[in-house]
């Protein structure tokens, strides 16, 4: 039996009260609920306050470059598809610096769970606008207020037929843990966008602000594979912000398309010397 204790307890570099703590707790709970041991889990992360997360629980870790959590996660999943691969990233990391990888990883559909700490601000660099910052938010850089339209990650993912699209809230840990659990169980790319208050730099989207607006969708009122209805639902933002699973489309994962993985993990394949010599004969 795996327990929460197996995932350890570490000192963090996060500000007291940060929404990241809730996400860390929910992730540990989800992994324990699924009975995954730390050594079966690989977390690939980018750069940002979110991406420090794998340092604060026991797991295999590839803490790479800013914006680049998804490509190494994909590579690792292909190399050893027996691993539970989770990409931990943030709104700046995933929707800004790594936006291109987000689009193409959705197309590729590897069996990876993406947890996006979406705090609508840049925390690590101390308070600049992020791709999801609201119009009008003032920062030292956006002194006249943000005027670029915010990116809607859920709408974008649904429009590209991402196979699992959901939203959680760092202030609702049991609900978030359940979402992450579903995301990990889903075969294919799972997006878990997490509303995460930044207590130091985002004075607009606070715990209070979110708590007054978010609500759990018990039943979204449509079939989860209804892309148009899911897209419509994903546009709901403002006074009321829905949480839960918006869209699910079961389809073959990237690894399922790769016949060479049928016999076992890729990294165990041996070099075929005789077959290479046969190819060489073709050039003689």
């Amino acid at each position: 039996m795996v327990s929460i204790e197996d995932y350890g307890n570490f000192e963090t570099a996060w500000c007291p009260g940060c929404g990241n703590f809730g996400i860390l707790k929910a992730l540990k709970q989800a992994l324990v609920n699924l009975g995954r041991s730390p050594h079966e889990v690989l977390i690939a992360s980018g750069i940002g306050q979110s991406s420090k997360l794998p340092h604060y629980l026991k797991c295999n870790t590839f803490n790479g470059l800013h914006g680049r959590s998804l490509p190494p996660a994909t590579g690792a999943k292909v190399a050893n598809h027996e691993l539970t691969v989770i990409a931990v990233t943030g709104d700046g990391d995933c929707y800004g610096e790594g936006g291109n990888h987000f689009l193409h990883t959705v197309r590729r559909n590897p069996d990876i769970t993406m947890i996006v700490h979406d705090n609508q601000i840049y925390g690590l660099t101390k308070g600049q606008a992020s791709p999801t910052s609201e119009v009008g938010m003032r920062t030292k850089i956006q002194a006249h207020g943000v005027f670029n339209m915010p990116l809607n990650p859920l709408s974008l993912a649904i429009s590209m037929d991402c196979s699992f699209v959901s939203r959680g809230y760092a202030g609702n840990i049991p609900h978030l843990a359940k979402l992450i659990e579903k995301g990990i169980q889903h075969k294919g790319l799972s997006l878990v966008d997490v509303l995460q208050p930044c207590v130091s730099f985002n004075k607009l989207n606070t715990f209070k602000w979110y708590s007054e607006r978010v609500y759990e969708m018990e039943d979204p009122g449509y079939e989860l594979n209804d892309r148009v209805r899911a897209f419509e639902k994903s546009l709901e933002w403002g006074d009321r912000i829905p949480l839960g699973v918006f869209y699910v489309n079961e389809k073959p994962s990237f690894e399922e398309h790769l016949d060479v993985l049928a016999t076992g993990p890729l990294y165990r394949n041996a070099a075929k010397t005789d077959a290479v010599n046969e190819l060489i004969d073709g050039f003689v």
Partner: protein
Amino acid sequence: MRVQAGLVILIYVFVISYLHKVWEQKGIIMNIGLNLKIGGAAGQGLQTTGMVLAKTLKKSGFHVFSTQYYLSRVRGGHNTFQIRISDSPVLAMTENVDLLLALDSESIEQHLSELGDGVVVADADVIDIKGSVDSIFHVPMLKIARDVCGDRIYSNSVSMGAVVGLLCLELRGIEQVLKKTFKKKGDEVVKKNIDAVRAGYAYVKENYPGGCKFSLADPGEIEDMMLINGNDAVGLGALAAGVQFLAAYPMTPSTGVMTYVATNADNFGVVVEQAEDEIAALNMVLGASFAGARSMTTTSGGGFSLMAEALGLAGITETPAVIFLAQRPGPATGLPTMTEQGDLLFALHAAQGEFPRCILAPGTAEECFYMTADAFNIADEYQIPVIIMSDQYLADSLFTCPRFDASNVEVERHLLSDQELRSKGEEYRRYKLTPWGISPRALPGQGGVLVVADSDEHDESGHINEEPENRIKMNDKRMNKLEMLRKEMPVAKLYGNPDASLTLIGWGSVYGPLVEVVDILSSQGKSVNCIHFTHIHPLPVEATIKLLSKAQKIVCVENNSTGQFSRFLKADAGISVTENVLRYDGKPFSPGYVIDALKKKEVI
């Protein structure tokens, strides 16, 4: 025109055979050689025609060397496929053309001046030949193709038959090659191609009975020799090394390697993924490598620029990766289909910070094969990125070389076994400090241990650590691997008389031209040798200084405008060259170009 041409040929044959004797006595010609050039627009089937002829000539027992010159377009433009043959090994191109197969009129306009005493084979019914050109053998390729095969697409095969006939070769060789080439397209296609070749052959035999000017006797097939280009050789090397994952973004002139591996991926248990960009490509490779797969990426300078940050990630996370970098002239888009060695200093210094990397630069197809295989072992042993530097010239040129043997390739993964991991009896630390700097490597998921890699400076366990003392330890650990590898790097190879008064040096793809320059100048009684560098970085400094200590005058020959290798040699080994011979017009060196430059610089 026909009569006139016949007369010219007769005189030519007489004169040339006399000249050959004189040249041979003077040592100017060391072997029988011939240059064929096929010119045409993109989309005219140049590639297939060239390949079939090159294979046929190789099958007939000649050493074949072939280069391609093409523009960045899928249709139109002017492209050439050049084939040099000899009865002894050839590794470079020469400028003169003996037989030009012109598929368009531009071929004649552009290359007539290269012909000297050579001849043109063309279909005057199809292409506009301006003025009277005596040396043209008109072959009605289109008409014959229609008459014999009922389809104009066979006109290239008619032209091939004509060329084989004019070279006085037997039809057997080309027929074998055609059978193999068109096997997949079915018996009908094979038969029609053979019919077309025979018809072209018969046409020249009948109409130009004296046209057999080159009189190449079939030397008989040379055994166990391959005809292969640099890119395919790299692809084969990767397969021999057991590559498991390749992620790349297509970019000329590197794409051939990606294509070759993809073509064979299913049979070899390899996953090839076309990434959304080069940033993703190298980052995917690093993720796959971290999780245990032997991984590589392929690119050219533009893509490599995008990979720079991930190159540093490989460095600090100590993740093995093989990067195939086929250079083309930059900056930016530059000359996309041409050649240059302009990225050496960039490859040496790309990415912020300091970390160990290895740079290999094969000079022949054989070296492409074995050094690619070796690159994987170096990457795994030292847990570093290894860059294999090629260029358009090496990538696309066809070499005749001894058969590779994959049995000579050892696959050395340098991974902890489950048993070793269990017997450690301590918590696994990915970056454990060792006297030699290399930490024993386990894979995530293996033996219940946790493997932690971090792009931040980290401690032995892999977690972020910003302490100055730790930084020094970790930096020294990584850089120590470079010194360990330096001891293993073989020194450059010397060709020719060790005591020669002039030493030519070069790296990578200039090997062939350099060797031929040494042969030609030596035969003229000049005292010249050459030293060719394949293992560039980390340079075995002491051995290199020793090797070059005898050199009286050093001239560095390289395909760039600033003498990058000379500067590198000065910086790393303190060796100064006397002169540089540089070329940066997008074309590779020919021996003649180098000799002219040496004369101009009054080195010889």
